[in-house]
């Protein structure tokens, strides 16, 4: 009976199915062919094809190739660009949600001028003309005084392709400060003097063994999406093993075959001990060491003798047996690779840690091999001509003399330098930066300095959003989010170099303008008739015109069509086709495209060799510059370092009293950590970036709060369970947050995610949704569906500054805290940081600089160093 009914119904469905729009418009389902992976998208409602515009993602800095799909003039969907060799058609969660940067109802859509006190939140809408005149007027005042360095610009995420630098050079100011010291600068400084570039490209897809020191590549870090794809491939298709050292069970650690919890900051010791085992058991690649590094195997063996696994066990808590086993596995599995990120390097001596880690693939000869530890592959582009010259007078803030090796600057010490009067600033520009939220000390440090109109008399924010920093500005010039901008792009995020373009998917919303236009218009106001000699550097019609000046003359791309190619494809070169069967990029024969390995073994041409001399070590020198290395009768290009070798011994570190060889320095205040003290560590979740995603609703829905991770042992000791309030107290302040008790964390560590607990950044980030959009944005009805009521607590105000005396990097993971159950007066969300105590922490950390009194104490092995006085007169600013 029922069956009969069903049959009748089925017949009916067939008829009815045919009448629905979907079925009517759909072609017959393809027969044996499998589905395509992407490149097209259709509206699920009316089935119309959505317009596809290739762009370059810029939610974070991985720079994936993307396609924006536009429906009724609005970007409704973002997808990976299938022609992009790195991204291969995929985007991460953040990239998929990128359109909400543009459509955030709380985006600023017209220029604003402060009317109340700084930070009071009272604004007046002004016209662009008023805004530009005011800013240009202030600039002219400073220029006419002849002190262009008093104009400062600090940027966070600058992908302008040179426009920001051009602006500052045009004004003649050297006071341009980045944000890299709160990011990964000590990793860069650990690597650059050693082998040239600031990052590695592990060939995860083809490797058999991965050692991961403190990188959460599957959630964040460089280069999340492209590298994660290859890790999944290597893991399943190539049966690789991955071992992760981390203080916390990140998704990467959770995915790994082994998670080895390690005491914060001791990764370097573990890596050195592994090196010790490898060298002790003669498992190193002697031929590679002898030929391609500046040390001998004998020297290396001698040097590594001190780093026993037992020594490392005492420091790191990693059992000596595990260190020995993993060292052997790593050395005896070929190919093997290594990856690090902020785990090792964000400590007082982070540069040493990074160096210690990168020694492992070097001593095992895994460098630049298929499945190994490869050099990054990037591409550049020429700048529009004419170009302004680099200003002559140096700026204290961009090159603090106490940190001569910190080539990526020490931006997080800026507020203290300002407070100390190290440099006078009249105008402060900010671009895609939010140190009031993201830097150590947060509002307690940057908030204080930025509110101080004596230290920063005029504060211009170029921002699309009312971030914590922009909220303190005097004037806001509304910038565009990435989907409305023109920008050139390239990132070494796979083994194939590429050039990409970011192009606007629609006109600027409201009165916002993209940054390069804002900068041009300021210059044109400062120098309307060209008499200051500035206007000529800003000679372009619009963003597209500027891009043409970048791209139209690049060999290869020019022949392919130049800008027109990039506008159509978004990326160049296109190496092959994305195969839906494998998800890989394949060549004309259907095979996966092969990467170029062994870059250092590219041979120099006869033309290169003309006029070159080869010394007894094989170094090939031309016009006073090393251009390659002669080995076995062949002239190789070598590594991009001063001597074309891998510098295991970094000579110029020794000049400043630092140990030139791989070494480890324990964070001194971790030595005698009390029983009930913990180390505070911060981290990013996969759906957020540092500060700009809290207002992205799809990401905020997935993660909107950041309770403090703690081990059950720790929680038991202080008597809390998940959800209970705890008080976290450091030497500079305290905060009250919720506990999240999890087995996935080292018992001596408490971990608090960043990206939460905003007090600015619009209504969603601050959960003040009863208010209306204030700055011209269009409300999103979906925000009625926000169901969560917890926005988290931001920990940075209780984290003191620590600066790596070599790399200049912030020691994010060095903070000792006392964690207790919250008291009766503690309220969820309480955060308090004390300026005076933060200032003391700054004074303390510069004692570790090469000029400081603790430097020698920390380096007894460098007793013969002549001291800082010996370097008087030597130009600061990094050593390569």
């Amino acid at each position, binding site marked *: 009976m029922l069956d009969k009914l*069903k049959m009748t119904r089925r017949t009916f469905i067939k008829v009815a*199915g045919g009448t629905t729009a979907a079925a009517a418009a759909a072609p017959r389902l393809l027969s044996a062919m499998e589905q395509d992976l992407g490149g097209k998208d259709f509206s699920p409602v009316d089935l119309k094809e959505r317009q596809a515009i290739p762009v370059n993602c810029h939610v974070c800095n991985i720079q994936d190739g993307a396609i924006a799909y536009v429906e009724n003039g609005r970007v409704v969907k973002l*997808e990976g660009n299938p022609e992009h060799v790195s991204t291969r058609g995929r985007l991460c969660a953040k990239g998929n949600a990128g359109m909400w940067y543009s459509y955030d109802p709380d985006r600023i859509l017209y220029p604003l001028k402060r009317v109340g006190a700084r930070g009071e939140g009272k604004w007046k809408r002004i016209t662009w003309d008023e805004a530009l005149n005011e800013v240009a007027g202030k600039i002219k005042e400073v220029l006419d005084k002849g002190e262009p360095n008093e104009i400062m610009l600090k940027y966070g995420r600058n992908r302008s392709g040179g426009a920001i630098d051009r602006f500052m050079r045009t004004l003649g100011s050297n006071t341009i400060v980045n944000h890299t010291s709160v990011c990964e600068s000590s990793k860069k400084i650990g690597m650059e003097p050693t082998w040239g570039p600031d990052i590695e490209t592990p060939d995860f897809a083809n490797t058999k063994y991965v050692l991961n020191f403190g990188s959460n590549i599957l959630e964040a870090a460089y280069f999340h999406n492209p590298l994660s794809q290859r890790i999944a491939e290597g893991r399943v298709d190539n049966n690789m093993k991955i071992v992760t050292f981390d203080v916390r069970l990140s998704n990467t650690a959770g995915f790994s075959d082994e998670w080895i919890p390690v005491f914060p900051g001791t990764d370097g010791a573990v890596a050195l001990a592994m090196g010790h085992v490898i060298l002790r058991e003669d498992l190193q690649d002697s031929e590679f060491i002898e030929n391609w590094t500046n040390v001998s195997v004998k020297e290396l063996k001698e040097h590594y003798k001190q780093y026993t696994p037992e020594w490392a066990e005492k420091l790191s808590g990693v059992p000596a047996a595990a260190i020995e086993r993993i060292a052997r596995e790593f050395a005896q599995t070929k190919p093997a690779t290594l990856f690090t990120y902020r785990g090792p390097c964000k400590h007082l001596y982070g540069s040493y840690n990074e160096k210690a880690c990168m020694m492992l693939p070097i001593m095992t000869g895994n460098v630049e091999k298929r499945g190994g530890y490869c050099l990054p592959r990037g591409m550049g582009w020429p700048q529009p001509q004419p170009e302004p010259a680099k200003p002559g007078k140096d700026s204290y803030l961009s090159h603090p003399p106490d940190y001569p090796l910190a080539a990526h600057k020490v931006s997080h010490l800026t507020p203290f330098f300002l407070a100390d009067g190290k440099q006078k600033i009249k105008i402060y520009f900010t671009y895609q930066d939010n140190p009031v939220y993201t830097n150590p000390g947060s509002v307690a440090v940057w908030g204080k300095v930025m509110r101080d109109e004596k230290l920063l008399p005029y504060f211009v924010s170029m921002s699309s959003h009312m971030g914590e920093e922009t909220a303190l500005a005097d004037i806001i010039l509304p910038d565009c989010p990435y989907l409305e901008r023109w920008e050139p792009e390239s990132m070494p995020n796979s083994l194939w170099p590429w050039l990409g373009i970011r192009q606007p998917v629609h006109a600027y919303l409201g009165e916002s303008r993209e940054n390069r236009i804002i900068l041009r218009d300021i210059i044109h106001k400062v120098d309307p008739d060209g008499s200051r000699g500035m206007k000529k550097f800003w000679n372009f019609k619009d963003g597209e015109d500027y891009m043409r000046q970048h791209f139209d003359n690049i060999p290869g791309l020019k022949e392919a069509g130049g800008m027109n190619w990039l506008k159509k494809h978004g990326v160049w070169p296109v190496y092959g086709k994305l195969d839906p069967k494998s998800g890989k990029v394949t060549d004309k024969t259907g095979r996966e495209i092969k990467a170029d390995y062994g870059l250092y073994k590219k041979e120099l041409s006869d033309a290169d060799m003309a006029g070159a001399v080869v010394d007894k070590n094989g170094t090939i020198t031309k016009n006073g510059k090393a251009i390659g290395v002669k080995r076995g009768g062949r002239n190789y290009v070598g590594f991009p370092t001063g001597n074309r070798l891998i510098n295991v011994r970094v000579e110029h570190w020794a000049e400043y009293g630092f140990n030139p060889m791989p070494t480890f320095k324990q964070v001194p205040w971790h030595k005698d950590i009390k029983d009930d003290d913990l180390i505070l560590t911060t981290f990013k979740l996969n759906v957020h970036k540092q500060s700009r995603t809290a207002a992205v609703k799809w990401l905020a829905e997935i993660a909107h709060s950041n309770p403090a991770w703690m081990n059950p042992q720790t929680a038991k000791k202080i008597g809390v369970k998940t959800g209970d309030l705890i008080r976290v107290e450091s030497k500079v302040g305290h905060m009250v947050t919720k506990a999240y008790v999890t087995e996935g964390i080292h018992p001596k560590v408490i971990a608090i995610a960043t990206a939460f607990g905003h007090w600015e950044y619009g209504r969603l980030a601050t959960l003040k949704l009863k208010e209306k959009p204030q700055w011209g944005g269009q409300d999103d009805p979906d925000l009625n569906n926000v169901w969560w009521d917890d926005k988290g607590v931001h920990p940075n105000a209780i984290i003191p500054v620590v600066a790596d005396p070599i790399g200049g990097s912030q020691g994010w993971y060095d903070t000792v805290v006392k964690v207790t159950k919250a008291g009766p007066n503690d309220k969820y969300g309480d955060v308090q940081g004390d300026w005076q105590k933060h200032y003391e922490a700054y004074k303390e950390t510069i004692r570790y600089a090469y000029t400081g009194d603790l430097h020698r104490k920390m380096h007894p092995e460098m007793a013969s160093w002549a001291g800082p006085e010996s370097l008087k007169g030597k130009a600061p600013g990094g050593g390569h």
Partner: protein
Amino acid sequence: MSEELRTSSIETRGVAGKKRYAMVIDTRRCIGCMACQVACKAEYDTPLGVNRTWVPYKVVGTYPVVKKQFLPRLCNHCDDPPCVRACPVEATYKSDDGGFVLQRYERCIGCRACMASCPYNARFMLPASRTYTKITNVVDKCTFCFHRVAQGLVPACVQTCIGRARVFGDLNDPASEVSYLVARNATQVLRPEQGTKPHVFYIGADRNHTEFGRDIYRRPDVLEGDRAAFQRTRA
């Protein structure tokens, strides 16, 4: 494939000339990045509070031997879907070719019987407010991206899957990748005892996810305050 007892006339298994779309989710490749969940939200302008696909995670083990397990979830597009039986007005139906379990929004009365019948929590009520899509206050669900598949594309979640953990194709085609994966690997489906014959197959699914009700024994890794906040907005 061995011939199982065919209990319902709407099953697509082995029907000549008919497609039987399925998804294989290889959890060994899933990195829990949530790209699928967000891509799906974008594809359909899915409102906050409801999801067509989602990725729960579990932390399993005792320190220091701990693992994270993810299990991407979506409608199983059952070969014998209880929701289709439950809908009084045939707003929910199974497509003849392909086996998509779909929803006729213009017909749905919003009685939620399909939600009550689904063993997988795959169905939800659309709220009154959406960003730009006019379809509201009816039951919605994953459609296996019927509109994309019909145009020769994979579903949006498969498209963006970073680990390539999600694979989509026709199980009635022995040469397809899903057929290969199902044939060559130990696969699981969710709640097989329900007799729904799911079309989402898992490789390496963890029992901490698949065992029904396990979350209640083992406190889920979530602040109860969040769950309470969510419940307050339902009613």
